């Protein structure tokens, strides 16, 4: 049987369905797994995404022709049964399940297997062929349980507050920031959000996600700032905006912070290893749970994963995509 999904210059293409998944060039029909910029691009004629992700997509892409589909609901298109299933990556993130003449393929988008409070937990979906991401596809990437990381973050914040020093946490504004928010202890001080973070908080709250109260910089007086935690995107580092916090301790939250070299290049006081992607054991667990014999690896450590999977009895190969930038190594949404 011919492959149900192939790579075209526009993106991953479902052949019998005649639609694309997270295409990187403008197409007629696009199924979007989640709202990060490298997956949800402007210019398509028709968009489909999971219902909880609609707000995000609208806020980022403006007036688009968007259709929502609830998790687990099905829709038939050109004889392909499409359904979306939680990927546990960010609010509204979905795996795309495609069934055609009894064969099932699943495209994962980006995913994380550990549940968190800001999005629906990853759901394993049985399939014949699983298209998986591989951002952290090396055995050196093994995450701690997130509660331990939140505890570390709160301890760092508490100590800074006691010493009268503002805490600045740099992280990706969509997804990571809200997940961190959900784990912070608001009894320590105010949580100040950068202008790039706050609009996303609003969308999360509108989507029914409980987040602790946040304020903007102008809402807090100077003395209280020294007990505050500031959530800002990495681009704010070294900006005049951030210098207004005076003597502060800075931290960066990302899966890439696992490595000392990356931490030291960032030159921040603390690197918190918190990722919205699956670690190596998570990738392996997710692949096993699909029951798939065929695995297609996209963006990340493609050659390593393919070789390892083949060695372990899978029929594996890679797809070259334009998601993330594995060579850049420090993609913002990790």
């Amino acid at each position, binding site marked *: 049987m011919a492959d149900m999904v192939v790579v075209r210059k526009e993106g991953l293409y479902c052949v019998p369905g005649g639609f694309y998944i997270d295409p990187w060039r403008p197409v007629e029909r696009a199924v979007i797994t989640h709202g990060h910029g490298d997956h949800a691009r402007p210019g398509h004629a028709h968009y489909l995404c999971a219902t909880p992700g609609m707000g995000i997509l609208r806020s980022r892409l403006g007036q688009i022709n968007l259709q929502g589909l609830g998790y687990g609901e099905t829709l038939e298109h050109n004889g392909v049964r499409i359904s979306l299933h939680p990927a546990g990556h960010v609010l509204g993130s979905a795996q795309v399940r495609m069934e055609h003449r009894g064969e099932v393929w699943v495209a994962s988008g980006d995913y994380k297997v550990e549940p968190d409070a800001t999005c629906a937990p990853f759901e394993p979906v049985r399939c014949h062929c699983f298209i998986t991401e591989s951002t952290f596809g*090396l*055995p050196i990437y*093994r995450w701690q349980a997130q509660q331990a990381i939140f505890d570390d973050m709160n301890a760092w914040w508490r100590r800074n507050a006691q010493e009268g020093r503002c805490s600045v946490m740099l992280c990706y504004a969509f997804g990571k920031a809200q997940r961190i928010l959900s784990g912070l202890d608001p009894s320590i001080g105010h949580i100040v959000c950068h202008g790039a973070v706050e609009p996303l908080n609003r969308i999360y709250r509108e989507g029914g996600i409980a987040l602790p109260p946040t304020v903007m910089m102008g809402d807090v007086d100077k003395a209280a700032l020294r007990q505050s935690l500031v959530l800002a995107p990495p681009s704010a580092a070294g900006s005049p905006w951030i210098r207004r916090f005076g003597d502060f301790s800075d931290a960066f939250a990302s899966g890439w912070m696992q*490595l*000392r*070299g990356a931490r030291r*290049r960032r030159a921040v006081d*603390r690197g918190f290893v918190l990722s919205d992607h699956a670690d190596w054991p998570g990738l392996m667990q997710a692949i096993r749970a699909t029951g798939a014999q065929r695995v297609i690896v996209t963006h990340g450590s493609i050659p390593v994963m393919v070789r390892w999977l083949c060695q372990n009895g899978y029929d594996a190969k890679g797809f070259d995509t334009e998601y993330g930038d594995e*060579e850049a190594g420090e993609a913002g949404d990790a």
Partner: protein
Amino acid sequence: MREFARLYAELDETTSTKRKLDALQAYFSKAAPENAAWAVYFLAGGKPRQAVPVKLLRQYATEYAGLDEWLFDECYNAVGDLAETIAHILPAPKQESDVGLAEWIEQRIAPLRGAAPDEVRAALFRYWDELETSERFLLVKLIGGGFRVGVSRLLVTRALSAIAAVDSKLVAQRLIGWTDGRVQPTAQGFLQLIAAPSATEHAERGGQPYPFFLAHALQADPATLGDLAAWQVEWKYDGMRAQLVSRGGLNFLWSRGEDLITERFPELMSIRLPQGTVIDGEILVWPHGDAPAPFAALQKRIGRKLLSAKLLAELPAVLVAYDLLELDGVDVRQLPQHERRVLLEQLVDQAAQPQLRLSPLVLAEDWAQLALVRTESRARGVEGMMLKAKDAQYGVGRTKDVGTWWKWKIDPFSVDAVLVYAQAGHGRRASLYTDYTFAVWDSDAEGERKLVPFAKAYSGLTDAEIAQVDNAVRRTTIERFGPVRSVKPTMVFEIGFEGIALSPRHKSGIAVRFPRILRRRDDKAVEDADTLDTLRGLLAQAPP
């Protein structure tokens, strides 16, 4: 181990000196003395001997993690550090332990040296199963040798001085010899380190040297230093800095890294000096004539285990004395530079031995004339000049608090060369192509031009420039050989170096000293880079 791992993490995490100091003080004020003793050893730069060969560590970790060798190599290439790679790939521990640093080193790690492979394997598996990631990282560093901490010895000294309420110069003095590996750190040793000063301390010093006073590089115009009359000017030699300690009828020769190197230089061992003398100076190979032999000659002496009579005759060493730290058993480091100089001149004169020379003063009317004299540096086989404040005391380390020494070096040699190979760096530069091989043009018998590698250089680019070059390396890769990539010749760099000598061991026939990148030459085409003939021309400028 847990406390030490926490300290290590805190030191590693922050770039702030104050926070590092706070962390050190917090650790030393609560750690048990026997553990603190070992912590001082490692933090002050002590290098443990390798207990288990790296190859075995790698093999056992791969087995323990259930991975394949190729997968381990992929991980290592991404991390750029063996201990860190191992710490990350191991599955989570099932046991818990909190054994002190001293017990780890003395009871658990030391016995691994020379043990049967099966025993080593079993022990490592047991240890790995009771430690978490940061502790495993330290354990592998301690076992594999090559442990380094991002903290200066000066900072350790300050932390100890603060918790002991003892002058930091005294602590620095007591720290001498702590890290040379001959004496095992003990609880008693640590308590002495932080004890109140005692009257007998100086007498108990044995053959120990003083902490070296280090110079700062002069970037500014020397005229900004004020009146030349306030400065003592000497040549800056390209040899090996050393202290010659003569006490109790014996001579001890110490390198700047506080290694005892007496046996390497029998001719200096035989210098006869009054008891209780310490001289600071430079070891040079100086067979005859007005200029010393280039550093390469000294390297031959250092590298040789057995010193034949022939070698000693061909490459005789001298000590060029430039400071006096102890005279008649009295520490004279607090005297001003010009007074120490007078005493040094008398001492060298009375000793009257050819292998002990006095570093001559360089005299000039004003800075302009001095700058003119400095242009002779290369012909004299020196690296430039030293400017020492005449009222300076002999300080501890690289300080300016009791007067300053400046090194005023001549501009390096430079050529424009082409980047031909790149390799990923380590530590902060892991996963980035930062280590480069450069080539210059040469013509073969048929007149065909080809690029000949002549130097490797790692330093000199900013982070932003590194990112650009890294990107270009990935885009222009021709072939990969393990971690090395050959690249299409597209980038030209100006490469600086201090010395140049013929070398049969290099493909280009030439070896350069301290090569580094001065700048990227985007304005130059690859074809316009320099040639091997340019390099050969520079050979003529260096003394034979």
